[in-house]
């Protein structure tokens, strides 16, 4: 039980560091740590498939993509654009209002039941594969099309226009 609160504290801490770090490279590294704490949360929920996918896809693929883009763009700390303090305070107030509204709505619900892992096979690859390739076969195929079109689009957008270059 206390593991959850410790990990939750770490995720919030690293998430705050992601948005407050001056250097974008530090932001990405803190984001890696945040996603790692999410992976631990998935393991605590016994969602083993999602834990592995989160680890490989998010921490392995997506964040490396971010780092490569940052390397291509070659930013340094001096060129980092910052907003004025006034806008920052307004933004924090706005986000805080959103949080207050959600928490107040949650207060109305009252104390909820604990999250128990009733079915230990729920998050395993075998069980999820059966659901994925039975009920969700069509969305699965469509998502493969989406990934293909995203790949084509990314290559098309990021290559230089031969007429201009």
């Amino acid at each position, binding site marked *: *039980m206390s593991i959850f*609160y410790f990990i939750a504290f770490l*995720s*919030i801490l690293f*998430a705050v560091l*992601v*948005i407050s770090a001056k250097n974008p490279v530090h*932001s*990405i590294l803190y984001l890696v740590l*945040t996603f790692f704490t*999410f992976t631990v*949360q*998935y393991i*605590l*929920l016994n*969602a083993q*498939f999602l834990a592995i*996918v989160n680890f490989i*896809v*998010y921490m392995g*693929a*997506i964040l490396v*993509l*971010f780092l490569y*883009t940052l390397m291509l*763009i070659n930013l340094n700390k001096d*060129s980092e654009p910052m*907003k004025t303090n006034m806008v920052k305070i*307004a*933004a*924090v107030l*706005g*986000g*805080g209002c*959103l*949080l207050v509204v959600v*928490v107040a709505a*949650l207060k109305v*619900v009252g*104390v*909820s*039941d604990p*999250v*128990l*892992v009733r*079915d230990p096979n*729920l*998050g395993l690859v075998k069980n*999820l594969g059966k*659901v*994925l390739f039975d*009920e*969700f076969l069509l969305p699965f195929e469509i*998502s493969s099309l989406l*990934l293909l079109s*995203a790949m084509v*689009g*990314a290559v098309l*957008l*990021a290559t230089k226009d031969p007429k201009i270059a």
Partner: protein
Amino acid sequence: MDSFFKTAQTVPLNHYILLSAIIFSIGVIGVLIRRNAIVIFMSIELMLNSVNLLLTAFSVYRGDATGQVFVFFIMALAAAEVAVGLAIIVMIYRNTNSIDINVLNRLKW
């Protein structure tokens, strides 16, 4: 292993919702306070992940695998979104030599 999950999971569902709400709000604040397009993208990833965690918690709470399949789809969607979004950012940088989103305020129409 079984007893580990039984003792580890006495966390109320409300606390999962609270954690996700906090992370989501941090993502919203990140989008609002930064001008660097890549950091804004990372804040959006943070929001997507908080929703993923909440879907998984509800899925375990209800004992229904559908929620976890949805998380899988969201991850596929996020990968596609990041690939296209970063390509757009690279293109913007090539044209304007900056990834400050305030440079793009001409994109009104």
